[in-house]
Structures are given as C-alpha cells and as structure tokens.
C-alpha cells in the first residue's frame, strides 16, 4: 500500500492544477457561466487535448487506461476550481456506463467522439418518484418489430441539456421497482419525441428534465443487448460517487484554505481574528473533517472496482456518509468564519457551499447511505 503518485499521475496532477490556477479564477469562471451552455466549450477542447476526456477509458476504446486514482486526481481539481464543464456527467458517469455496459461496436461508435471532445453524453436515469432508489424506473421500452419505443419522464439529468446523446434507462419488463428488467438505450438527444427542459442548478451547473414520448430507436440502440442493467447502473453510479467524493475534497480544501487565509488577514478588536482560540479550534475541526473526508475519498477510489459487489457498495456508502458530513460541516464553518462577507455572491466561499450542498444530495444523502450500509451489515464483520 502506498499513497504516493507515480510519475504519470504527478504529471496529470500538475496539468490539472495548472489549468485550474491559470484558467479558472473567480472572474474567468463568471465569464464561462455567461456563455451559451453555461460553461466553456473552449476549455472542453483543452480537456480533450490534455487527454482528460479519454483518461478513464481502455486503450482499445481510444482512451488512456487511467484508473480510479487518476479520476480522483482530476476530480479533486474540478472541486478546487468549481469547474462548470460536464466532466462528471459526460465522462465519468455516462462514459463509465458505456464503457462497462456497451458492446464493442457500440463503444467504437460512442467513445472516440466523446474522447475527442466532439460529443457529449448524459445519463438519463432518475425519475421524479424515485428519490435515491436506482431500481425505481417507470420509463418503459416496448418492442415494435425492428425498433424499441420508449416512453417516460427523466428528472435531474446532469448536463442533460447540452448532451448530444443520451443513455436512457427504461423498463422492458416487471413492475416499477423491480430490480430485473431494466435496460439501457442510446438515444439521440434530438430524436423525434425527445423534449428537454434545461435549467441551472443551485451550484450554477446545468441539468435537464427530459420527456420521451414514443421515441423510436433501432434494436442496436439497446446497450450491450442486456435487459438486466441494474448492476451496471449501480456500478457506474458508484464510480460517480467515488469521483464526487474527490470533487468534494477539492472543494472543501479550497474553502478551508480561503478561510485560514482570511483568519490571517481580517482584524477586529485591533488584532487578527486568527489569534482568537475559539476560531483556531473551529479551523482545526474543519481540518480534521477534511482529512477524514480525504481518507474516505481514497477508500472509495480503492474500492470502486472491487469485484465483491456487496463490499463495493458498503465502501461507497460509507464514503458518501463521511463526505456528506464533512462537506456540510466544512462548508458551513467556512462561511461562518468569513462572517458577513461569507454570505455574499462576491465572496467565493459561499459558492463552495452551494456546490457542496448539491454534492450532498447527488446519488443519495447521508441518511440514505447510512441506512443502506446498516442494512448491508456495516463495515466490521460481527463474526471474527
């Protein structure tokens, strides 16, 4: 076991750190927000040039065969810079799903343009009634000779508004929450019958609600020819959670660094407020929460490819619980220690709080994951 980055990982880290430092300042980010998509197409092209868009994919698929550690490095930088681009939605989540669920021909059709930055994907899965239950799919797909016909409504599709291609989950058999009978379809976002309502989320990223009304896709659109896609969906979502954990750590660390810096600048009662012991101890409590979160982000990335599915799900659930608790504490304290300026739009610390509060909700809050972990027997085996 070792926690040091190898040469290649250090190069990736240097590259993404430099990118965030040079091109993701407060003003620059505000400018990207004003662009048509609400993020920067120009930067997306830079990510492609740097090889970031192909990082998690196998060489056979045109990727660079990075593992969870590489994704973690990138996502931490995404968190530090509060990046707006659809890296999580398009590359990690939808791309990860295609990589594990699609057959060779489908991968060859979908992944190279994604890796080149010429095509965006989104995973249209969650539905209004489902909350955090991944098996709760009411969208239906029925066979009509040499087509599938899809009907249903998808909610909170991350970066679903800008996607060129959607990976849509739909039920081909069974009742609403049946774990069996869920399939995945590749759907052109501009296909007849697809309507999208895009919107900004609280953190100023983008999402969409998508209605599929008699959308016809050819038989080859069924991903991996599988009608039992739930395990693949769970695996892809676990991968996204692990990535999100790293993003949260980056965001927490940045908010924390800003806070400590502020404690060394701001004077009240004639002294630096950082000289007050009560504020020092608050800052230390934040530090402890971040270190615990960072440890669990490592743990999540270490376990995300675990073959024992129950072990993997326990680990990811545990990581999300810690990340959520740390994220809430650190974000709130960062704002609190900034005082009045912390609750304003012009101070970035609150922007980190907005993103972290969305991360808490994405793919399940702490209660959800704690309940799941408890049902699955926890982390320490009762039998010696």
């Amino acid at each position, binding site marked *: 076991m070792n926690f040091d980055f190898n040469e290649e990982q250090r190069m990736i880290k240097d590259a993404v750190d430099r990118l965030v430092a040079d091109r993701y300042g407060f003003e620059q980010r505000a400018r990207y927000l004003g662009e048509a998509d609400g993020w920067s197409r120009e930067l997306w092209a830079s990510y492609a040039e740097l090889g970031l868009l192909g990082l998690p994919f196998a060489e056979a698929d045109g990727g660079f065969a990075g593992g969870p550690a590489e994704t973690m490095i990138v996502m931490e930088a995404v968190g530090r810079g509060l990046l707006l681009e659809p890296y999580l939605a398009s590359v990690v989540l939808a791309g990860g799903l295609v990589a594990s669920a699609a057959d060779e021909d489908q991968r060859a059709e979908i992944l190279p343009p994604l890796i080149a930055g010429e095509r965006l994907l989104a995973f249209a899965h969650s539905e209004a009634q489902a909350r955090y239950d991944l098996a709760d799919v009411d969208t239906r797909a029925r066979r009509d000779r040499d087509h599938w016909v899809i009907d249903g409504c998808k909610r909170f599709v991350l970066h679903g508004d800008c996607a060129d291609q959607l990976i849509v989950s739909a039920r081909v058999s069974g009742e609403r929450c049946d774990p069996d009978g869920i399939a995945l379809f590749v759907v052109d976002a501009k296909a007849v019958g697809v309507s999208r309502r895009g919107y900004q989320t609280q953190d100023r990223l983008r999402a969409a609600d998508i209605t599929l009304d008699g959308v016809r896709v050819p038989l080859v659109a069924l991903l991996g020819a599988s009608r039992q896609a739930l395990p693949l969906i769970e695996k892809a979502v676990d991968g996204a959670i692990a990535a999100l954990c790293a993003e949260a750590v980056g965001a927490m660390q940045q908010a924390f660094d800003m806070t400590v810096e502020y404690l060394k600048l701001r004077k009240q009662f004639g002294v630096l407020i950082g000289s007050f012991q009560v504020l020092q101890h608050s800052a230390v409590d934040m530090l402890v929460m971040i270190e615990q979160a960072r*440890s*669990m982000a490592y743990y999540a990335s270490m376990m995300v490819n675990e073959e024992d599915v129950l072990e993997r799900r326990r680990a990811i659930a545990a990581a999300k619980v810690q990340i959520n608790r740390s994220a809430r504490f650190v974000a709130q304290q960062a704002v609190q220690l900034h005082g009045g300026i912390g609750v304003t739009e012009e101070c970035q610390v609150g922007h980190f709080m907005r993103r972290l509060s969305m991360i808490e909700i994405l793919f399940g809050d702490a209660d959800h994951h*704690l309940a799941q972990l*408890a049902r699955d027997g926890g*982390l320490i085996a009762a039998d010696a």
Partner: protein
Amino acid sequence: MELRFTPEELAFRDEVRDFLRNAVPASIRRKVEYGQRLSKEEMVNWVQILNAKGWSCPAWAPEWGGQAWSATQHYIFKEELHMAPAPEPISFNMNMIGPVLIAFGTQQQKEHFLPRVANMDYWFCQGFSEPGAGSDLASLRTSAVRDGDHYVVNGQKLWTSTAHHADWCFVLVRTDATAKKQQGISFVLMDMKTPGISIRPIVTLDGHHETNEMFLDNVRIPVSNLIGEENRGWDVAKFLLGSERGGIARVGLSKFRVRRAKQLARKTPAGDGVLADQPRFRERVAALEVELKALEMTQMRVIADSDKFGHSPDPRSSILKMKGSELQQAATELLMEVAGYDALEYDHAFVTGEREVQHDDDWARTIAPNYYWVRHVSIVGGSNEIQHNILAKTLLGL
C-alpha cells in the same frame, strides 16, 4: 498510488494472525476479551512471548531489536494484535522510552537498557505531570541539583501510572531554575529502588488502581542516567509525546469493541427480536464504523509518510490522537447501550481480574468501568484541546 494490500502483505497478515492464534495464552485472551485488567505477571509474561518471536517492539530500529517492516506491515501487526484480541505491550516501554533511547541515548545507555526494555526486565513508568503542571507541562517544578556525579531530586509527580509495578521511571526534572520555562528541563532515568521515592495510589473511576502520586525526597540519580543534553530535556519530551500520539489512535481496539458490541447485540432482547436487528441500532453502529474506517485510512496515510518526518513528529498525529480518543470513547458508549441493565452491577474483583470468568453474562460487568476509564484518553498525552492548539500552530500557522 496502490491502495490495496499486496499478496505479500496479505501473507504477512496471515502469518501474524496464525502466530497470535496460538501464542496468546487462553486466560490472557479471555481477560482482554472480557475487558478485565491484567496482572503485572500476565503482562510481562505476554511481552516475553512476543519478544521471543522478535515482535515486542517491531517499530524500533532493526539494529536494536525492531523489525524492518514496511509501514503497512506495522499497521497490519497492530490491527491483528487488537483484533485477536491480545494485550498491547506497555506503551511506556515500547512507544516511549525505547524510541527515545534510540534517538537520544549514548551507545552505553542503548546497550544496557534497550534489550531489557524490550523484554520487560525493566518495566518503565513516566514521571512527567505534576500537581501544577498538567497541560502546561513545561511549568514543572521538580528540581534536580547537581552534587558530584549525582543529581539530587526533590518534588512531586502526578498520574504516575503503573509506578507500583515499575522498575524504572523516566523523569522530567528542572536542572536550571533560572532559565526560561522550556529551557532548564532535563530528561533522566530513575531506578525505582532508589531511596527517597514514595508512592500513593490513586484509584480511578473504574475502581482500579492503575495510577499514582509519586513523591521524590532527596532521590540521588547518577548523572550518567541523563538522556540527551542537560537542560535540553524538552526536546526529548516533545519527541516522546509525538511518537506517543501516533500510537494512541488505537483503531484496532475500537474496531474490536464495535465487533464485540455487534456480537453481544445479537443476544440482547429488544422488542420482539434482538437489538442487532433494530434499524436505529444498526445505523448507530454503521455511523461509528464509517468514522473508524476514515480514521483507519488517515492513520495509514500518516504511517505511509512517516519516513518523511524523521525525528519531528508528523503534525497530523494530533488528528489521530483526537479522533482516535473520541472513537474509543464512542465505542465504549455503544457497549454501554448494548449492556443496558446488565451494566449495572459493580463487581470489583471481576474488573481487576482477581475473579475469573464464571458466567456468560460476566461480559457486562466491565462495560461501565471501561466506559469510565476510557474518558482519560482524551485528556492524557496532551488533552484534545491542547492538540487543537498544536494543530492551529503547526499546520495552520495561526
């Protein structure tokens, strides 16, 4: 970055596990399992079994009897020890005076003391705190005045745990009364048989006699027992407290307690079934397990970086100390809640280990005393509030 155990590391874990399965005497294992105190003889006996294998002080430099293990192996060893469960060798010997002697001792001191420390021929205790010097340790007043080739020591020490068992004591004394606080302190080794030492027991909340007050009245200590330079004892003390902090997280021990709570909850009636099946209880356990896993990983990160810090302790060891003590306490609280009414009866002879296990439900008799006892872990070794101060200064520059 490789975050999983290698096949070699897994093989090492099995080796340790197999050894412990056979090596821990059954009576000692049962006492640890039931949360009872060990006698002096039992502890010495156990450490000597470990030492015969070369494993009583694996973290020391190999030339002085340690093992050339990787950080991960050290971690695995400790974890297996706690989960066996087997007693942890005395910290004063293995985590404190041993490393101090290796770092600061003369060749002669090392050769004389280290083998005896490793084998517990010498049981060491710690003479640091005083009535007026707790968290503010540097305000200690015990004086050492040079008289030929001896120091004549006078003063009072407090919280001298296991002094009544100990053969030797490492003591902080003031050798220069005129110097500023941290300067003028020296670190000396005191033979407990020296005339002038008297000990008064202090019984702690668990009903047990572990710690003491120690009075020093014209105790003559040879100058050759000075460790490091005269008046530079504070550097030695800081080194010692830093290496103590890392060992104090005791993740394995807390994991053992949580596992025990889960086992016991299966037999504990609640509602129509057992406590272990109640969602509220399960979630409470899971929440603690999450924090423990995070601390475990944090500890591994600190261990993995340990060679980057040399003599000065990794400041993050303060995090391990704070979080580790909180979680030890949380685990004993969990056991209290599992025991319920069964925790009620006070059975002194069972807690101290004088009476052996007789009944299935004896386990519950030590639950409350251990809960009370473990309150000390957030106070000892620099209270958690002091650790906050240390981190604010060293890591945050505040």
